[in-house]
């Protein structure tokens, strides 16, 4: 029996012969000329895009500040934060698949719906933004826009929902879904919920390791799973700081880029209002080689496109620019250090680049956080993949 290697080799040879016949020796002069023209178009579009982004840029301080605002307002209710990132112990010992009815991941808008007319799931889930593998091969992490998180188990607000991931193996693929969990004693009266959307994260435990198998939703839509095996996570966050939420978004230009953001909070923080809150954001941005180059002499700023939201709240569009105040070495690469004292927020940041990925660790409320630049650098230097890479 012919081996798969031999069959592939023969197939490639056959395809190579076809290509040689079809394209001849190579591109014509006209094709090269056309490619140069297209390259200039791309450059012009890139410049316009960059100018637009710069014009509407929000400094990292504002993004972090907004996160801090949101988190400070929910500080007393741990369950109201988007699903917490699993601890290493949880990752090493997954609890197996959740049971219960699964809603399609792609569902419906819930504006104007009552809680009673949708059996099983009370609140809609818009299409998941993205699904990544967990740090264990038996987990998927789904980011999506859903309803307001329940503040606690006793929360009777019929518009607040928690989500439970479900998974089952069907043949050679996994079928995954999300179930909404609401207050058991919610009012029977007709309730209209606003269309307020919150960025949510749910962890789905798989009954078996993913092992490269396909994933579909309960309504049979294929799910593209982002491989998180190369994502960097800090091994030693500052003492008393723990991961609280994460999000993953894909580039809207379809160039293969993505942005993965973890947020850390101090567990012993006693702040009761936003102005006292601190948070650390850990960002990993796959640029697909198009938009970012962290190097000496370049002015770096963090930006969010206008109108985009952070956990349901619109980010302020005022901006601040940061220039590096120093350099150090992180994971063998030069890292730029930023120290920006804005009118409302004092921010520290460490930014470096590995291949096409840019990593940034940003601390808001540096004055009250108890974390120094050295602590932030140490956190950066402890970053590794789940496999220690």
């Amino acid at each position: 029996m012919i081996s798969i290697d031999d069959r592939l080799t023969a197939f490639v040879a056959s395809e190579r012969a076809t290509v040689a016949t079809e394209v001849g020796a190579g591109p014509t002069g006209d094709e090269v000329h056309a490619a140069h023209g297209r390259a200039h178009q791309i450059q012009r579009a890139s410049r316009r895009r960059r100018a637009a982004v710069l014009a509407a840029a929000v400094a990292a301080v504002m993004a972090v500040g907004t996160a801090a605002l949101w988190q400070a307002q929910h500080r007393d209710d741990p369950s109201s934060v988007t699903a917490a990132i699993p601890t290493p112990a949880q990752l090493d010992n997954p609890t197996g698949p959740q049971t219960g009815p699964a809603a399609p991941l792609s569902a419906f808008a819930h504006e104007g719906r009552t809680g009673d007319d949708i059996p099983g799931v009370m609140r809609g889930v818009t299409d998941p933004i993205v699904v990544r593998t967990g740090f264990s091969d038996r987990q998927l992490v789904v980011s999506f826009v859903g309803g307001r998180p329940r503040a606690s188990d006793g929360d009777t607000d019929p518009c607040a929902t928690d989500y439970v991931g479900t998974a089952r193996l069907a043949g050679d693929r996994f079928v995954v879904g999300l179930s909404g969990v609401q207050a058991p004693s919610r009012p029977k009266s007709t309730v209209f919920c606003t269309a307020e959307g919150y960025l949510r994260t749910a962890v789905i435990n798989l009954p078996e390791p993913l092992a490269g198998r396909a994933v579909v939703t309960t309504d049979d839509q294929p799910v593209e799973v982002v491989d998180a095996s190369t994502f960097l996570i800090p091994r030693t966050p500052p003492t008393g700081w723990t991961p609280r939420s994460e999000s993953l978004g894909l580039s809207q230009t379809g160039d293969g880029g993505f942005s993965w953001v973890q947020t850390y909070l101090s567990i012993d923080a006693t702040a009761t209002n936003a102005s006292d809150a601190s948070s650390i954001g850990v960002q990993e941005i796959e640029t697909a080689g198009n938009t970012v180059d962290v190097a000496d002499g370049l002015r770096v700023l963090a930006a969010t496109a206008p109108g985009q939201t952070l956990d349901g709240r619109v980010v302020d569009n005022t901006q601040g620019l940061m220039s590096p105040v120093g350099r150090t070495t992180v994971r063998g690469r030069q890292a730029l250090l930023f120290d920006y004292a804005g009118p409302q927020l004092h921010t520290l940041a460490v930014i470096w680049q590995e291949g096409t990925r840019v990593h940034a660790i940003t601390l808001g409320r540096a004055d009250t956080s108890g974390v120094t630049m050295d602590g932030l650098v140490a956190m950066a230097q402890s970053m590794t993949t789940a496999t220690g890479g």
Partner: protein
Amino acid sequence: MADEPETTEVPTSHLVVEGASDPDDAALEALFRTGYRDLVLLARLLVDLPEDAEEVVQEAFARALASWSRVRDKQHPAAYLRAVVVNVSRDRLRRRRVARRHTTTSRPAEDLDPRRSPGSASSQPSGEGLRAGDSDLADALHRLPRRQRECVVLRFADDCSTAETASVLGISEGSVKTHLHRGLAALQRLLEEP
């Protein structure tokens, strides 16, 4: 769904820099001319419609030219161009999948394969006539998960080492080995299906 971020507001932060360096694309153009056929072969095996391959390579060359001035490590233009071809192929597949989803949402999932004739449950790829040989293998190759397909294609079509494949795909060498192993096993399994 993951490729439809335009349908939801994602709180994505981007780092933006300002700066430029002198363009120097002669090496890239020379490579484009001499390595054209290899790149077309690579694209042909990555996209679902082989007739798209030349367009993919030309788009990749244009994109590479556009960003070449910002590439700091210019010692390996071949690897850079190869990586752009992989990215453009990926974009092409993703966009087609989104378009397909919007136009054929009522059709069963098995009919959504771009290589199948519209409305037909047959497994005959629509581009079969353009494949020189083993259409079963071509079909199986495109049923692999993206990463596995990319690893298999880079290894067999481009003769990339594990390290080179890891560099092109931006993943670890361990991941490349895993994807390659799983990809070959899955291919074997798919080809053995009745």
